[in-house]
């Protein structure tokens, strides 16, 4: 194993250990409720970056993948009372299939056309779910949590830990992609798709692969939300805010390195959680707007762009 990998996995294990210790030591549940949301956005942003950052295909349909994750979980709970692990795994499978579908459908589309197609797809899927009575349809559906399993004493703490596992999984996969031939291929594809193809990069296969992995991770990250909220309705599950927030987090953090979306999600996610319980009004939305404008204008490469060359694209870590 390389030194950077040792550092990475030590960090990941340390992170999980801290998270686990928190669930065992803290009695106050609020940090887990708020922390869950932030971790969820870390997963979404990191997963989004595979396609949006490395490959340069801006996915506006994050809400479609997220909602599909939520409703896969709802469906499994409704039909089979499936446990959380199965819900997440199934959501990942469905998300990857959706990703494959998006990839195939948009094979010939570039740039903004791809983004518009993902918006359209999100609306089509949302409408389908809205008309699907078994999962509650437009009326929404209330869900009952099963009893929590040891060693956790509350379901939210368990969800928090599960989401932390997903963070590690998503980051590990993204990091692997970035450091492998896939990452370099995607990078070439992003800079100049035609040139990449001419030099023998299998652009089509790479693009499909990026769609599949990114889609699977976003849906998996969304699946626990069904049990977190214990209620699902299409309006909330397919909310455009997921697309905008994830785009904002990734760009604010920087998309050329996996650490970027983590930083962005933690910074923006924490800010949002903080503002909701302090200012708590439309000023909240204003802050998001101003942060977006200021960051994309003042820090074109995101936060990681401000910290020297070590995190620039292609650099190993």
């Amino acid at each position, binding site marked *: 194993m390389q030194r950077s990998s040792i550092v990475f996995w030590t960090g990941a294990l340390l992170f999980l250990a801290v998270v686990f210790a928190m669930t065992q030591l803290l009695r106050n549940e*609020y940090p887990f*409720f*708020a922390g869950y949301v932030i971790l969820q956005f870390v997963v979404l942003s990191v997963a989004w970056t595979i396609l949006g950052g490395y490959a340069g295909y801006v996915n506006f349909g994050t809400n479609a993948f997220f909602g599909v994750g939520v409703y896969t979980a709802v469906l499994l709970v409704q039909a089979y009372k499936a446990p959380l692990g199965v819900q997440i795994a199934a959501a990942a499978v469905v998300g990857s299939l959706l990703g494959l579908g998006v990839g195939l459908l948009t094979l010939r589309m570039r740039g903004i056309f791809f983004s518009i197609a993902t918006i359209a797809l999100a609306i089509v899927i949302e409408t389908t779910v809205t008309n699907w009575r078994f999962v509650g349809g437009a*009326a929404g559906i209330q869900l009952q949590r099963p009893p929590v399993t040891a060693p956790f004493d509350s379901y939210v703490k368990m969800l928090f830990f599960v989401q932390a596992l997903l963070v590690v999984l998503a980051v590990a996969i993204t990091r692997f992609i970035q450091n492998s031939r896939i990452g370099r291929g995607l990078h070439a594809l992003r800079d100049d798709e035609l040139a990449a193809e001419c030099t023998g990069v299998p652009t089509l296969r790479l693009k499909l692969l990026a769609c599949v992995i990114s889609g699977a991770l976003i849906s998996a990250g969304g699946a626990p939300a069904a049990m977190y*909220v*214990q209620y699902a309705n299409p*309006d909330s599950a397919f909310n455009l805010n997921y697309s905008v927030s994830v785009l904002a987090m990734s760009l604010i953090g920087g998309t050329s390195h996996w650490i970027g979306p983590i930083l962005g999600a933690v910074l923006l996610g924490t800010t949002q959680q903080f503002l909701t*319980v302090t200012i*708590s009004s439309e000023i909240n939305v204003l802050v998001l707007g101003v942060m977006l404008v200021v960051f994309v204008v003042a820090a074109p490469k995101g936060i990681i762009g401000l910290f020297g060359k070590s995190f620039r694209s292609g650099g190993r870590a």
Partner: protein
Amino acid sequence: MNRRRVIGWAVAGIALGLMSVASAEEPPIKIGMSMPQTGGLAGGGKASLLGIEIWRDDINAKGGLLGRKVELVVYDDKSSASETPALYAKLLDVDKVDLLFAPYATVPTAPIMPLVKQRGMLLMGNFSFQVNSKVHHDMWFNNAPWGPADSWATGFLTLGQKAGGKTVAILSADQEFAQNIATTARDVAKKLNLQVVFDQAYPPSTAEFSSIIRAVNAAKPDIVFVASYPPDSAGILRAVNEIGVGDNVKILGGAMVGLQFGAVMENMGSLLNGVVNFNTWLPEPSMYFDGTKAFFEKYSKRAVQAKVDPLGYYLAPYGYAMGQMIEEAVNATKSLDQKTLAKYLRENTHKTIVGPITFAEDGEWKESATLEAQFRGVKDKNMDQFRSAGKQVILFPDRLKTGDLITPFEDARNK
């Protein structure tokens, strides 16, 4: 250190200690809630919150509850279901509030029901619809006058049937609340032997309703039941006015949300005439109880400044009533214990500015007081006309009735 100094410090210390004891004796009673202040439900949420704030100021002017000041802890839930779990966890675990109010509307309320039940907290509901039907929390009390789930459609469809209607068209928004109402409408129609000749859900982003009203028209219904949301209600009424729904329609309306708000009513003006729609409070003689008038005097003054609905009939008095019920329960039991309060609320009838309230097993009102009222003689561009009686005549329920239905719809429109 000389002796005098030591004594000085000691005195200061004791004084400080006494002061902190004094203030520890009287910490405020904290009531926590989230409220939609941005997003689709913000219009209602802000008006509701103002009603609650007026109650807080009134009670504090009277010396508070159990001699303690009342303090509200309010967060914005952005009208979204995914925000409320974290907010109520914060209210419970960090702010350690003494009592909980629910946010306005069903979507933000539904996710917190299991949490509140698990923590054994009393929850005062705020205009949500049937959120407790699955959770069965025995300390839930809804301030909204809906009563039993089907009472809503029953009122409207019974009026239609009495007017000679045999067929029904159901037009509903494809969104949570409207769909629940539409479901009950189908059941009630079956019970009353009314034939459903049109039953469609329109998508929430619909910009133009001409086409769909044309389709309603083609089905030739006698009764048109509409369950819609604020921006759409106005669009539907406009299209009804332009396209027409046919001469055989006896009664139109039912569950159109939005036509309760001052700004919307002012904008719609004479287009409202003839429409029969639900409401919760109206300035009709039968609706004044102890303190109602004083409340609206305060409300209209503060609404301008707060940029919320200037009339505030729909939600604000019920926000105030929610506070009144808590006030009554706390004063009667001299306690803040959740179970004691819940027991009191369940077993007694409560006097409020919206009338006496008695709760059924499920925490909804025992008897529905959802009004069906007909708009009459409404002129264009005039907000103040709605403050006087006779503009919205109450047809249902019978005990609050102030007039009879004018039918058919085409005739009623010109009155």
